[in-house]
């Protein structure tokens, strides 16, 4: 990978973090728990995405981020209230921003219409503070929110003066009622003219330690600034402490800069763009007009020689002042409220290639195997338990276990990002279905292996959609049922006995069992007169091809059913169950392994081979009695367990290890549950025990093997295969044919 691609990759990784922070911040604001720092963090996130995107020439992203940032800035400066509507708009904009980031990374075409519409809404929301002129114009000084300080310069005649010019300008502020919107633009243009005539800025620049820590150089910034025009710089050194008190990593200098330039204020500001949050900065423009001394009290004479087109300035003077004032106000609170400590308080982290971590996990796996081999040898050699060797070996064992845990922890990540992604799904589905939904999350700090988290996104998305679309009633029905209009979807993660449990629940109407039953009969999934318990009916939801939606809505018509959800959860070595209470709601419970690198298995023997059966599939084990085993048809056998007959499958013959079926009464039956919830009893010769095994790929060097999910290495260094229970059960359906084929081959 070339350097540029590597930097770009880092940028996208950082984008993900920024997006997460953005969303988290916005949600904090939504809960009305946000403070100034939250708004700053949100602003900073969008700002740094914009900065990075600019460096890589990602124009779409820059454009949208800029619009977003502008509106956020309105919020930051207190001009735009964080009303629920505004926050929702921002959250939706954050979604679009995330889309644009992903498109920039993975390729594809952004939904331009949606982006444009959102930009439009953003500018309109932002415009409400930046240019309230349109609304206020017909009745100046009357509208509330129209402050006399800011606009106390009798704008009415001015607006008419420039109305004619304004018409020729593209009206892109989106306010078109009276054609007043362009007025703001024409002001801009005129302000621009003024700036080009030459300005003097007073800049106070006080770097924070973070600025230097990020390898910025104040001198470089000053040099850049110097390129814009004539500059006088004074460095204030009074704040430098005595040598004994000097922190070598501290920042003590303040620069006062007087800059005479033709450049616009934005150009000046841009120089500080990347250090904005690591310094105290104030940029003030000296004004040469009466009544403007409140911005900067400077003698006018300084400026007059530079300002030749005084005639041009004079008539628009009041307008100019109005346009200048907001930026000046914007600067000071923002700069003052930037806590310098924020950046340094973070826990330091490093980014590592997943490959390296995987290699480390492999190595530790070997270490564990080696250690247990060594232990076995020591026992075999008959060395006394309290000898130095044995004691040293015990220490080694403890160390090994600790290393293994720590290495596994490297891959572990909190489920927070995936939970955050779900809040977007909630918003989208709520919008689509017209329901009002609140997402409550708990246990976001629960840590799970990264690979598990990645593969949780799709099933969770579907479950959330399901909960809102099918679970929650319409607002009217909720009110009628005496519930609050707003539905609640809860997503809870918790660690439970070495696994992570994720619950997705809604407070909706619960499963309509009569309807589920009716549909299942209609689709031929169950017999009409079959008696089912409530939980058996609930389970029908997972049947392939099942859908309770009477009409295919936007949400449910995505071609994914709960059967796919169940399958993907099972592919992760997890289980999914459903509980429902009529009128109270439905809960889906996922139980997942903490990592995909390790599996809880039951080690069994079959035809002299050692195999591992994933514990997640096992319901129970039992020793069949002759009276419980019945023959069914030519070769099939079933076992009676608590009144139902369950097919018996001889693992040895399905895998082709032996051609003769084992005697059930000499075997152990391992009762397993498969993806379609049907139960089967696997016959194995014996059970060695339960243990955690490290999963090794068989595909990498060989290929997929029927009936085998993966391989693992046992304590003696030998390889054992891990059974693919579903495949074995499915394969046993054509077992007779298969067994025949194997018998023939072996005979040949």
């Amino acid at each position, binding site marked *: 990978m070339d350097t540029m691609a590597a930097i770009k990759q880092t940028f996208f990784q950082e984008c993900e973090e920024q997006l997460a922070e953005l969303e988290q911040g916005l949600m904090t604001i939504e809960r009305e728990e946000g403070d100034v720092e939250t708004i700053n963090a949100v602003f900073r996130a969008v700002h740094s995405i914009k900065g990075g995107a600019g460096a890589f020439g990602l124009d779409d992203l820059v454009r949208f981020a800029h619009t977003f940032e502008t509106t956020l800035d309105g919020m930051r400066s207190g001009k735009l209230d964080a009303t629920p509507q505004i926050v929702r708009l921002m959250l939706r904009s954050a979604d679009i921003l995330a889309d644009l980031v992903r498109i920039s990374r993975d390729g594809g075409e952004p939904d331009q219409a949606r982006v444009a519409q959102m930009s439009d809404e953003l500018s309109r929301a932002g415009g409400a503070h930046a240019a309230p002129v349109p609304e206020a114009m017909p009745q100046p000084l009357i509208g509330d929110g129209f402050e006399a300080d800011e606009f106390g310069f009798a704008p009415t005649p001015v607006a008419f003066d420039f109305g004619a010019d304004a018409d020729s300008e593209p009206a892109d502020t989106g306010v078109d009622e009276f054609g007043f919107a362009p007025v703001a633009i024409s002001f801009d243009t005129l302000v621009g003219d003024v700036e080009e005539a030459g300005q003097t800025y007073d800049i106070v620049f006080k770097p924070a330690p973070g600025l230097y820590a990020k390898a910025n150089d104040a001198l470089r910034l000053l040099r850049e600034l110097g390129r814009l025009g004539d500059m006088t710089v004074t460095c204030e050194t009074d704040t430098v402490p005595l040598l004994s008190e000097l922190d070598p990593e501290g920042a003590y200098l303040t620069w006062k800069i007087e800059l005479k330039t033709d450049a616009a204020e934005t150009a000046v500001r841009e120089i500080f763009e990347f250090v904005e949050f690591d310094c105290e900065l104030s940029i003030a423009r000296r004004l040469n007009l009466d009544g403007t001394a409140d911005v900067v009290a400077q003698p006018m004479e300084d400026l007059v020689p530079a300002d030749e087109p005084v005639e041009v300035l004079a008539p628009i003077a009041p307008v100019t002042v109005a346009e200048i004032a907001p930026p000046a106000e914007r600067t000071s609170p923002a700069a003052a409220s930037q806590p310098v400590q924020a950046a340094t308080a973070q826990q330091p982290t490093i980014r590592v290639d997943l490959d390296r971590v995987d290699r480390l996990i492999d*190595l530790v796996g070997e270490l564990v195997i080696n250690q247990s081999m060594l232990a076995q040898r020591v026992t075999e050699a008959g060395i006394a338990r309290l000898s130095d060797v044995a004691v040293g070996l015990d220490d080694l064992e403890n160390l090994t276990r600790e290393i293994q845990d720590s290495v596994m922890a490297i891959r572990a990540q909190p489920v927070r990002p995936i939970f955050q992604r779900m809040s977007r799904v909630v918003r989208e589905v709520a919008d689509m279905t017209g329901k009002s939904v609140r997402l409550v999350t708990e246990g976001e700090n629960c840590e799970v292996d990264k690979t598990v988290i990645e593969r949780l996104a799709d099933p969770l998305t579907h479950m959330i959609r399901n909960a809102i679309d099918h679970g929650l009633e319409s607002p009217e029905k909720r009110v009628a049922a005496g519930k609050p209009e707003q539905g609640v979807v809860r997503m809870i993660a918790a660690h439970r006995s070495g696994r992570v449990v994720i619950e997705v629940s809604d407070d909706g109407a619960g499963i309509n069992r009569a309807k589920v039953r009716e549909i299942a009969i209609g689709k031929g999934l169950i017999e009409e007169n079959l008696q089912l318990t409530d939980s058996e009916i609930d389970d029908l939801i997972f049947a392939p091809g099942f859908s309770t939606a009477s009409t295919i809505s936007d949400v449910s018509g995505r071609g994914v059913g709960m059967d796919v959800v169940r399958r993907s959860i099972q592919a992760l070595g997890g289980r999914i169950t459903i509980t429902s209470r009529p009128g109270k709601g439905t809960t889906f419970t996922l139980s997942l392994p903490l990592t995909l690198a390790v599996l809880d298995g039951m080690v069994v023997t079959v035809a002299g081979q050692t195999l591992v059966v994933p514990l997640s599939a096992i319901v129970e084990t039992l020793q069949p009695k002759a009276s419980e085993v019945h023959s069914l048809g030519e070769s099939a056998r079933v076992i009676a367990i608590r009144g139902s007959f369950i097919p018996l499958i001889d693992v040895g013959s399905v895998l082709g290890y032996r051609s003769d079926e084992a005697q059930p009464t000499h075997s152990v039956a391992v009762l397993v549950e498969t993806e379609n919830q049907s139960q089967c009893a696997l016959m194995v010769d014996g059970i060695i025990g339960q243990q955690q095994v490290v999963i090794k790929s068989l595909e990498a060097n*060989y290929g997929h093997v029927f009936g085998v999910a993966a*391989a693992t*290495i046992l304590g003696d260094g030998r*390889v054992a295969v891990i059974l693919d229970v579903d495949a074995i059960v499915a394969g046993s359906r054509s077992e007779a044919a298969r067994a025949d*084929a194997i018998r023939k*081959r072996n005979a040949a």
Partner: protein
Amino acid sequence: MMQIREQDAATASELIAFRLGEQEFCVDIMSVRDIRGWTPTTPLPHASDYVKGVINLRGAVLPVVDLAARLGFRPAEPSARHVIIITQVGTQTIGLLVDAVSDILTVNSGSIQPTPNVASELARVFMKGVIAMEGRMISLIALDSVLMNDHAAQGLPN
């Protein structure tokens, strides 16, 4: 050895020669990762008869192919004297079960002759060429065809 190998690489290649019964074969030393003694393998369900099973090589699970059986000879009856040559074939690592490693040869690429046009299809598929040396004939194994087009890889019984 690494040094020598790199210097010679421009003009000559080094080959590892081994025996299967009375015949001699060789593979490019660059594709050889390890040579180890026979260790019991774990048989795989529904594998072809020439796939002895899988072994653990420093944490990786890799298949061991009985090269004799693969070439259509009598399958080996592995004993402690047999060796497994661990080779890298593309992205896969596989072990070749052979009778014994006999030699390390340095040959110029010019001295590799095309496989004689014999009737045996297996010979044509699995040999890249033959090398004449001191009155011996050593066949160069086409490693990529050893596990290639293998229905065992799909896990279906023959």
